[in-house]
């Protein structure tokens, strides 16, 4: 679940913004991985590749004018993860490369925003456990 330095954009170690984005992404990564593997039925290696892309996207997203702080943007990161995973799985299943199981079919029928909302609740719980004063 590490973000490879080869595929991630060049990080300026002095840039506090990118450090912040990276930290938030790392904090959320465990939950993203669970979403991709356990719920969307991706294999570990696929999830790892997708996570690298998600990191690239998250850096770009946080830089957009008017984006909330990286910490406040976690819910968008979760929506993007679910949507991206859904598109990927639909592509794989649609190409006949993998047969869908019941659980995967069920989650693919749900809107990614709804799935992400459930995960956001888990994230809130996780944050509360780690930082009860936050």
């Amino acid at each position: 679940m590490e973000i490879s330095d080869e595929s991630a954009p060049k990080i300026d170690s002095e840039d506090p913004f990118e450090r912040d984005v990276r930290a938030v992404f790392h904090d959320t990564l465990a939950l993203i991985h669970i979403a991709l593997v356990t719920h969307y039925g991706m294999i570990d290696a696929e999830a790892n590749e997708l996570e690298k892309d998600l990191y690239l996207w998250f850096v770009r997203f946080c830089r957009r004018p008017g984006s909330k702080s990286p910490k406040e943007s976690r819910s968008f990161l979760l929506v993007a993860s679910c949507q991206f995973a859904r598109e990927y799985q639909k592509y794989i299943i649609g190409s006949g490369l993998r047969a869908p199981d019941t659980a995967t079919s069920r989650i693919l029928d749900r809107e990614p925003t709804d799935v992400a909302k459930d995960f956001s609740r888990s994230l809130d719980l996780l944050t509360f456990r780690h930082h009860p004063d936050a």
Partner: protein
Amino acid sequence: MPEARVIQFPAPAWSVEPARDAKTVAEELLAESLEERSSEAWGAICDADVAVAVADLLRLDLNSNPNRVLSEAEAAYERISTSERRMGVFDEKDYLLGDYALLAGIANRLSGNFESAEGWFDLADASFRQTIDPYPSSMRVAHARLVVRYELRRFSDVVSLITGVISGFESRGMLEDAFKARFLQATSYKELGNFNRSLECLVALQESIPGSQVTLRSFVLTNLAEEYARRADHDRALTTYEAALALTDPEQNAMAYAQLMGSVGESYRLKGEYALAVTCFRAATNKYAALGMATRVASLRVVTAETLLTIGRDREAEWEILAALPTIEDQRMVVEGFGATALLKESVRRRRTDPAALRELSAALRAK
């Protein structure tokens, strides 16, 4: 767990060589003229980071070269929308199409093509709506649309709709945009004749705009000075104009500089310092002439002539009038057969300039 291979999406995100950063690639792309740009060079625009960098560079050019920004933004929009390459990894393509459409809309507005601007703003809205967080981008489009309404002199519309845009910007920490929206609100109040409310807004802006927003700060000071001058507080107006001038680069922001010098000249004239007024009017005239704005040059020449006559510099006044009259007639700056023009022409021909005719012409030009 069975052995499995990772299957890639059909068209992976294209990316620039790691050694060259997106800004460098963007600068190289824009260094080539649009007509001479090769397909290979254009390919770089389909990299999300390069496309963001190109848009950022074009935004810096909006006020100095809107026509170039317009052609570049339209071409980039076309390239991105028709490209079959996957752009970015998620919603980057929609975001960038929105951003380029917004740029093209603003550039159209600056060039006076308001209908085209609205069309581009519709496209921007449609693309931004497809992104994961459309709210801040749609606020930027809403603001751009209100600037068009301002240009169309629909000031009541602006005043009634701008509050939502300001609070939208502020809720997302977009303070630079919020200041611009507050400035639009202040100038709309002024145009509606609500001078007290306008002054209140301008003073609040003067106190809160950071030093980094130099151009906006200069516009705020210019408008404040004009309001002080309107209230016959000429000393305060001139001090404020001086502060605005110190922030306005005559080369990089030639149009703002010309407007400002014209306003400073007017303040000196109202204060009775005619020689200084003439100097300022001439500086403004030269700038407008360099920008090719013939009608502005002619109007200023008439005001300069009026001022010169007041201090007995009749000969110079005649030159100014003789230089201005052809444009006034060619461009139909006053209605055909306007009596004062004929009287003035005749009096100048006899080298006895008629001050009443000159005043009448000047008033007619100001009223336009």
